[in-house]
């Protein structure tokens, strides 16, 4: 008997779509409801960050770095200033290092809250999103009292920080650290272990560990597949060696190892680990002047440097080439979301259209990062 010939349909999950986390166009080739191929088309948010960086001096590039991954702004700045400081070969005061790490971890919590909230929204649970944003407000208030902005901070400058932390920062952070575990518990009750959510995300978008490594995935995407790789422990920078925390990996608890649920749960548990880091660091902040090491004029010697850090979305690296002048010759941002997005066709073959949403949400992309 001859095979029934069905045609494949090309559907466009177009740049404007409620669930693609920004302006991402995914061209789906579907056979009925089953996805045969998913081709992401990007570039709708390209703002020429790297070209701009060639025309600015090193200090002026920092606001541009903020705007790459606009949800994890502190981490973007952190990697960049580490790179510039390595190029200039200057040592920043320990107080600066501690504050930077605290800010980076707070930003990690905030970024994961957005990822979790919007993921719930994609799957259809409207309420956890609001709870996540309510807690995000507490952290954004902390940021606002410190540097004046809520989303794009321009806080970490090469050599130091723009402002020192205000007097009540440590106290307010401790209040936040105390009451945040309740939210995590609430999220787990409402969303993480909810049978419907588990059924939607377990065994969906399975990413085997070797495929993840071959695609240079990083961050929760990689750790969700069971690979224990975190730059804060495996290529430590700043004061992370002094802090005690665990690397969270997915374990195939609810389904296959490396499915969407694992990646999602890695993010939830990473928030708990970040709380641990903040708790430890906030008690140990040494005294010092945060602006002592900021050079008057940044003119690095000729050379190049690549520094990477663990951003909430993965390995964020900056490759800077200096030609000895005030403006960098080239700044390349190695964006984690860009690299993680390249996995999309690989892990979405054979699943249903509704699963596409779950898969894209679990990779956790931010288009500012993908397109720069």
């Amino acid at each position, binding site marked *: 008997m001859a095979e029934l010939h069905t045609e494949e*349909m090309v*559907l466009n999950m177009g740049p404007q*779509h*409620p*669930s693609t986390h920004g302006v991402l166009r995914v061209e789906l080739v579907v056979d009925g*409801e089953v996805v045969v191929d998913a081709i992401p088309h990007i570039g709708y948010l390209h703002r020429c960050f790297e070209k701009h960086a060639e025309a600015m001096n090193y200090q002026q590039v920092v606001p541009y770095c903020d705007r790459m991954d606009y949800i994890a702004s502190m981490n973007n700045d952190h990697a960049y200033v580490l790179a510039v400081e390595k190029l200039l070969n200057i040592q920043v005061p320990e107080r600066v290092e501690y504050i930077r790490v605290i800010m980076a971890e707070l930003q990690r919590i905030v970024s994961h809250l957005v990822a979790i909230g919007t993921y*719930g*929204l*994609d*799957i*259809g*649970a*409207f*309420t956890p999103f*609001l*709870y996540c944003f*309510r807690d995000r407000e507490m952290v954004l208030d902390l940021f606002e009292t410190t540097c004046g902005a809520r989303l794009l901070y321009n806080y970490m400058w090469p050599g130091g920080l723009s402002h020192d932390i205000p007097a009540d920062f440590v106290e307010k952070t401790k209040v936040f650290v105390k009451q945040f575990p309740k939210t995590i518990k609430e999220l787990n009750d*409402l*969303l993480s272990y*909810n049978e*419907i*959510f588990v*059924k*939607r995300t377990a065994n969906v978008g399975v990413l085997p560990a070797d495929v993840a490594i071959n695609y240079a995935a990083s961050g929760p995407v990689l750790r969700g597949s069971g690979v224990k790789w975190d730059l804060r422990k495996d290529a430590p920078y700043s004061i992370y060696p002094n802090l005690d925390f665990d690397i969270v990996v997915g374990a195939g608890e609810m389904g296959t190892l490396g499915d969407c649920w694992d990646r999602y749960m890695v993010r939830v548990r990473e928030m708990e680990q970040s709380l641990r880091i903040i708790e430890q660091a906030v008690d140990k902040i040494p005294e010092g002047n945060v602006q002592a090491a900021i050079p008057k004029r940044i003119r690095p010697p000729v050379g190049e440097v690549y520094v990477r850090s663990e951003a909430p979305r993965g390995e964020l690296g900056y490759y800077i080439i200096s030609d000895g002048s005030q403006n960098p010759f080239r700044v390349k941002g190695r964006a984690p979301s860009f690299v993680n997005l390249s996995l999309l066709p690989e892990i979405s073959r054979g699943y*249903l*259209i*509704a*699963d596409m*949403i779950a898969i894209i949400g679990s990779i956790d992309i931010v288009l500012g990062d993908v397109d720069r």
Partner: protein
Amino acid sequence: MHNFITYYLGAGFLASLISSVLPIVFVLGYALVAMYLELKVSAHMQDRLGPMRTGKWHGWAQPLADVVKLLQKEDTIPTAADKLLYILAPLLVFMGSYAAYAAIPFSPAYIGADINLGIFYIIAVSAIVVLGILMAGWSSDNKWSLLGAMRTAAQLVSYEIPSSLAVLAVIMVAGSLNLNDVCAAQTGWFWNWFIFGKFPFLFITFVIYFIASLAETNRSPFDIPEAESELVAGYHTEYSGMRFAFFYLAEYANMFTVAAVAAVLFFGGWNSPFGTFMSGPIWGAFWLITKGMVLVFIQMWLRWTLPRFRVDQLMYLSWKILTPFALADLVAVGLWTVLR
């Protein structure tokens, strides 16, 4: 008397006209209240305030504002749409939802049409909604609408089975398809209600009926057809203005129908929970509407708590979980009824 209008005006055309228009008045008023309730319940569950400005006091006029907004929108029909079907679809959907109101016993003194096949009629006429939805999806000339419509049709048809089986179990206990008789069989204090009868089987029946009817009304977690984050808006993507208002109204009307039927079947209908205290024709209407609204509130509560099912999981739930349980439950209730 079963219908005070025919009692006073005789069984003529005028009485029938008034009987058929009276529920519309109720439905329109109820829809405004339900819309407001949904906005406020969802808001407070999400730690926010909801509408506060329209109408000065806590935004009570927000549903009115929404209705006026929908009414004054441009009536667009896509160029390549099948015009007749496009126009007919919302009317069919609303008609299917509204026709069920004829057989709901609002009070001992009022039931639109006192037919002996009450519940059977309700189930039959609710199936017209499926037809309307398919027409809407097909005539919109839009891939996403078609997908949404097909999913919806599959969903609605599949969930009618456990729903009907659950109803059948109660009818066996009550002994009549006439909803007034079902209510009459539950008079007395609240422990006479069917939900507490033949424990635990009628309770399981209620759960099955509630879940199945939630799927019938396309409410979350079964709102795949309107999955805003997946298919933009499913089968009613291309509809705007008054036509969209019909779909919206039909959804709310359906919610109350299903809640009222559940109240009648399981919670005593127009009976007061306190026996003869606070009972009578007008109290009867009050009790039925209150019980219906409590069930509507539970439907909204579920919507704001749960994520939505995927299509195949939806089908799995219906065919592999609800239907077998409903069948087993039917057998158990039947045996209990016969052997007592």
